[in-house]
């Protein structure tokens, strides 16, 4: 029996239905399809159909280790899934408050494919059971109670009399006033009944939109499992009609502490750094190693430097393709999304330089076609525009699309040997960021070919000693700076400045006052990684 079996005494009819269901499995991916692809997983090729909402899913697919905040969000999604439903964990560790996974496999494509077959068997045999248990995760129960409380709070549209009746004796007049103040309610007196159809009392004291019209504002959560945004990113738009009046960004992911991950034995700092951001594990691995080497004062050979350029640039190209896939989904361009996703996976899996050269040419053709997409300019031009192109907070492609030449690679002698110069554009909007990232992905692949080495590992230099060191790496999202202090083989202090921590401050500028669809495109164009953002 699977964890989310449907209650029924199994008959031949149930077995037929279960077998039919097991053949076509819809999976809701947590944290999101972008993270699954970054791990090199092709969910569709493994036989699962990714779906956008839990209500269309029969399988909750959990990818990689999930921080507490994402596990709780996954529990909410699981509670919404219709039975029969199953939990499929791929490389996931602790899953509480979710039930134990029905199938759990290692984090690789081969394991994923094998796991899907096992899942089909489990579903075909155990989708229906005579006795089942309710899923009663605390997060669902707590929120339900909170919702009841909010239901009461929402009664502010009722009259004072109504509230007094509903609250009984406990509802003293001062409490009523407090409630009314909190909810913005204005009690309507007899003298105002002369103009009983007037909206003035209804809207008085409420904030006005940019056009002066007063409407009731509605908070709407987007994330952490919103399919149009990076998995884990959590925004709350306060909507004034279809316009975003206020934006609140949740800083990072609950339970994920990037800097804390890096403390510990120096020998394994790179492995821990790789867990910092699943979207760009290699860039952080490299950053950690360079910071440790700086602290120890050890250098690296030219060959090692080229190897690191090859690895980092391949990851940059793959990351930009991953972003293009998610962005294509967000703007409703299926072709863009599918082609970019395919190229991202091909780049991550390429095992030799010849294969990479072929993918480079394929990427160039894709970029040429994507940039000629009809109506792309009118769709993205001016969206997500920032008024202050010289804003200090900008980093990476977002800054370079605003005319800045900021790029940590320009100061690296190894990059200079390869005649590197950053691509710079001046539009400072979603269209320019799209163009720049696509052009950069081809440039990165050219750098890999010039370096002539492809690898996905970066070795740590020997002779590590105590000291303090700072390193900067141009990650796909911008420059990340790490300061480490080493004492007796331990990393004792860490200070991390990650690009998304800076770029997330731009979210308000690209959303407030914009229609909700444009606001989402604006946020998408910033390519934020919630994993990098420190809480």
């Amino acid at each position, binding site marked *: 029996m699977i964890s989310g079996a449907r209650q029924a005494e199994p008959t031949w009819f*149930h077995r037929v239905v279960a077998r039919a269901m097991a053949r076509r499995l819809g999976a809701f991916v947590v944290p999101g399809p972008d993270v699954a692809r970054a791990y090199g997983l092709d969910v569709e090729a493994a036989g699962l159909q990714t779906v956008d909402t839990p209500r269309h899913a029969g399988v909750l697919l959990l990818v990689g280790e999930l921080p507490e905040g994402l596990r709780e969000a996954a529990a909410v999604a699981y509670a919404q899934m219709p039975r029969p439903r199953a939990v499929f964990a791929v490389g996931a560790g602790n899953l509480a408050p979710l039930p134990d996974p029905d199938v759990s496999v290692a984090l690789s494509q081969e394991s994923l494919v094998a796991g899907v077959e096992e899942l089909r068997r489990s579903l075909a045999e155990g989708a229906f059971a005579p006795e089942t248990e309710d899923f009663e995760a605390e997060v669902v129960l707590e929120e339900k109670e909170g919702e009841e409380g909010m239901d009461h709070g929402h009664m502010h549209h009722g009259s004072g009399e109504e509230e007094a009746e509903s609250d009984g004796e406990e509802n003293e007049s001062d409490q009523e006033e407090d409630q009314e103040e909190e909810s913005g309610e204005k009690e309507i007196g007899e003298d105002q009944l002369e103009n009983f159809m007037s*909206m003035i009392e209804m809207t008085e004291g409420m904030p006005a939109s940019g056009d002066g019209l007063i409407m009731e504002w509605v908070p709407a959560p987007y994330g952490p499992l919103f399919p149009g945004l990076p998995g884990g990113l959590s925004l709350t738009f306060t909507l004034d009609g279809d316009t975003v009046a206020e934006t609140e960004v949740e800083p990072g992911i609950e339970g994920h502490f990037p800097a804390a991950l890096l403390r510990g034995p120096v020998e394994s700092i790179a492995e821990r750094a790789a867990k910092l951001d699943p979207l760009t594990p290699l860039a952080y691995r490299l950053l950690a190693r360079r910071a440790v080497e700086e602290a120890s004062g050890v250098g690296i050979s030219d060959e090692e430097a080229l190897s690191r350029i090859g690895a980092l640039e391949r990851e940059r190209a793959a990351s930009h393709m991953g972003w293009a896939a998610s962005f294509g989904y967000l703007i409703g361009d299926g072709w863009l999304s599918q082609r970019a996703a395919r190229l991202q996976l091909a780049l991550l899996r390429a095992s030799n330089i010849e294969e990479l050269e072929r993918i480079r040419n394929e990427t160039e053709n894709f970029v040429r076609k994507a940039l000629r997409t009809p109506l792309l300019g009118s769709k993205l031009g001016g969206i997500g525009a920032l008024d202050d192109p010289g804003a200090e907070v900008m980093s990476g492609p977002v800054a370079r699309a605003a005319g800045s030449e900021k790029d940590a690679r320009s100061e690296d002698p190894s990059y200079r040997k390869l005649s590197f110069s950053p691509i710079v554009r001046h539009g400072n909007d979603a269209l320019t960021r799209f163009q720049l990232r696509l052009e950069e992905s081809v440039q990165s692949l050219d750098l890999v070919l010039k370096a002539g080495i492809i690898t996905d590992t970066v070795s740590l230099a020997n002779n590590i000693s105590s000291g303090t060191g700072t390193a900067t790496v141009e990650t796909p999202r911008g420059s990340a700076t790490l300061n480490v202090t080493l004492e007796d083989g331990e990393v004792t202090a860490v200070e991390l400045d990650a690009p998304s921590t800076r770029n997330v401050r731009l979210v308000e500028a690209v959303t407030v006052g914009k229609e909700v669809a444009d606001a989402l495109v604006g946020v998408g164009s910033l390519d934020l990684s919630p994993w990098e953002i420190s809480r």
Partner: protein
Amino acid sequence: MSALQQYALLFGMVVGAVGFVLSVYGIARSLGKTRQEPGKDVPATSGKLSRDPVWARYHVRYYGYALLFLAFDMEMAYMYPWAVVYREVGLKALLDMGVFLGILYLGLLYGWSQGAFRRQR
């Protein structure tokens, strides 16, 4: 096609439609009971349970707007058939419509006098 045949066809269609609906219900029922679990009756989005209940309560005073909307929406619905026969009926149709619109405009004037179009002081 005789009248009896037409009624037979209509009856067949009704039986077919009702039969389809009942069979869908039958299949759903035979697949097992739906459990009333705690998380299922709470609206959720993006991995978060809804902050506000979906059954938002609207102030009774919005009914004025509903009435105004209905009045002018129905006016348009009435004007379409009126426009078709206007040339045929002539002046009488114009007068009939004038009386109808006049009554509606009285409602409009009343709403205006009650501040129905004011949202700000």
